[in-house]
C-alpha cells in the first residue's frame, strides 16, 4: 500500500511558510499531520533534520518545491509542542518522532493484554515487540525505547510494572 499524499503536497504555497498567522496555523497543522502519517506509514521513529530536507516529505520533486530548513525547524517545533517529537540533542539535529504518544501505545498494548487474558503475566520486552503472538498487532516491531516509554506510562497508571531480568527487561501487567 503506497503512501497517500494529502492534497496540500501538490499545492506550491504549502512549501512556503505563510506570513499570515491564521493561514500559517492551518499550514503547520497540515504539515504536522503529513509528517506524522508519513513516519507512521514508513514506521520511522527517528528523524535527522538534515536528512529530512531531502526526504520526499519535505521535498516534492514533482512540483519542484521543498520546505526550507527554517520552515522544517518550525514544523518540528510545532510537533514537539504537541508532544509528538522529542529532541535527541541540544543542537536539535536529531529527534524522536512519536506518531503515537507513549500513553497511546501503552493503551494499545494493555488492550491487547486484557483481550487475550494475559493480565498478571510476565513478558520480556522482546516477546512483546517481536514475539509470534503479537504479530499483526500495531505495536509489533516497536522500537525498544518506545516500548519502554509506553510501559513506563502504563506503570505510572498502575497497570504494569517493569522488572529487570538477567538479560534485559521484563514487564508484568496488572
Amino acid at each position: 500500500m503506497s503512501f497517500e499524499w494529502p492534497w496540500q503536497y501538490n499545492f506550491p504555497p504549502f512549501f512556503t511558510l505563510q506570513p499570515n498567522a491564521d493561514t500559517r496555523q492551518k499550514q503547520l497543522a497540515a504539515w504536522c499531520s503529513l509528517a506524522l502519517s508519513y513516519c507512521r506509514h514508513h514506521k520511522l521513529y527517528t528523524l535527522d533534520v538534515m536528512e529530512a530536507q531531502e526526504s520526499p516529505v519535505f521535498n516534492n520533486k514533482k512540483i519542484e518545491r521543498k520546505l526550507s530548513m527554517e520552515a522544517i525547524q518550525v514544523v518540528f517545533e510545532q510537533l514537539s509542542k504537541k508532544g509528538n517529537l522529542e529532541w535527541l540533542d541540544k543542537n536539535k539535529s536529531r529527534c524522536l518522532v512519536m506518531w503515537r504518544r507513549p500513553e497511546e501505545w501503552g493503551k494499545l498494548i494493555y488492550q491487547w493484554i486484557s483481550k487475550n487474558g494475559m493480565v498478571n503475566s510476565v513478558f520480556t520486552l522482546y516477546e512483546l515487540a517481536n514475539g509470534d503472538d503479537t504479530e499483526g498487532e500495531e505495536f509489533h516491531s516497536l522500537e525498544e525505547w518506545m516500548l519502554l516509554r509506553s510501559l513506563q506510562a502504563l506503570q505510572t497508571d498502575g497497570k504494569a510494572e517493569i522488572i529487570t531480568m538477567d538479560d534485559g527487561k521484563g514487564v508484568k501487567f496488572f
Partner: protein
Amino acid sequence: MDRFSWSNGLLEINETLVIQQRGVRLYDGDDKAKLDVGVALLSTHRLIWRDVKNHECCIAMPLSQILLFEELAAGLGKSAKIVIHLQETTVNKEPGPYQNSKYSFIKLSFKEHGQIEFHRRLTEEMTQKRWENTPVSQPISAGTSSQAGRTRAVGIVGIERKIEEKRKETDKNICEAFEDLSKLMVKAKEMVELSRSIANKIKDKQGDISEDETIRFKSYLLSMGIANPVTRDTYGTGTHYHMQLAKQLGDMLQAPLEERGGMMALTEVYCLVNRARGMELLSPEDLVNACKMFESLKLPLRLRVFDSGVMVVQLQSHSEEEMIASALDNVTDKGSLTAEEFAKLLGLSVLLSKERLLLAEKVGHLCRDDSVEGLRFYPNLFSTA
C-alpha cells in the same frame, strides 16, 4: 539727524583726523537740533560732533552716508551753514540721539566761522573716498570701542568674539539673500497675475485677437503650467497653504485617478503634479502634508500608507473590500499570479498591484509561494479546504 549714532569720539586705527572746528551747531533739516553748540570733527571716515561742555555726548556718522553737500552763505543774523544731504538710513543702525527724522538732510551752522576751510576739506575727502580703501568695511559707529577691543582681544575671548562676528556676518548675508528671494516671489506673483488677466481677456474675446494668436498664447500659458498656481506666498506657510494645496490636488487628481483604477503611488502623484505646475514646483514634503489634509477637508481622496511604508493616493470610493475581492477574483481566475502578472492584468504599477495582493493575503484570502521562480500568490486553500 537719524543717521547719527552715539560714539566715544575715538578714531579707528586707519582713520585720521582731517579738520576740527569749534562752535558748530547741528540742524535736523530745518529745525535746530536738541543739542548744544559743539566741535565738529571731520575724519577720513566720519563726520563727528562732540558737545563742547559734555565730552561724553559725542555722535558720529560715516561719510559714506553723504550724498552731496552745499554751502549756505551767512546772512543777516545768520551764521554760515553747510547743508549735507544724506542717504536712507541703514536698517540695523546703532542707536543715536534721533531714532528717526523726517528730513533727509542736516545742516552744520558755523557760529565761529571756519566753514570755508571745513567745506574745502569735506570736498577733498568726498572725492578721495579714503574710507573705501581701509580694511574696516562696516560703517564706523558707536561700536568703535568694542571693535578696537576686538582686535586687541586674545585667547578664548578673542576667538569667541571672532565667532560672534562671523555669525553676525552670516546672519546679514542670509537676510540679504532671502530679501532677494521674496522680491522674486512678488515679481512671480505679478507675472501670474498678468498671465491670468491676459487669459481672461482672451476668454472674453476682447480686442482683435485672432484665433491663431489665442491658441498660441494658450500654449505658452500651458507650457508655463497652471495659470494661477497656489504658492506659499499667496497663502502663507503651514496649514492654510496645505489646505489650499489639498483642494487643488483634489481637483487635479480626480481624472488621473479614475483612469488608473482609483489608486496612484505618491511618487507618481508628485511627478504628475509638478509636471502640471511647471514652474511653481512642490516639495515632496508639502505634497505629503497636503495629502494628509484630504480627510479633514472631506475631499473624495485619501492618502493611504501600506504596511510596507508605500504611500498612495486613492479615491475614497475605492474601497479596500473591493480591492481585496478583485485581487482574489483575479488570482482564482488564473490559478495563481505574481505581482507583475497582476499589474499587467489591471494596468497598475507593479508596486501597487503587489500591495493589493499583500493586502488580500493579510486578510487571509490569498497565500504565497515564495520560490526561486519568484513570489506567486494562490487562493488560500488552507483556509477554505
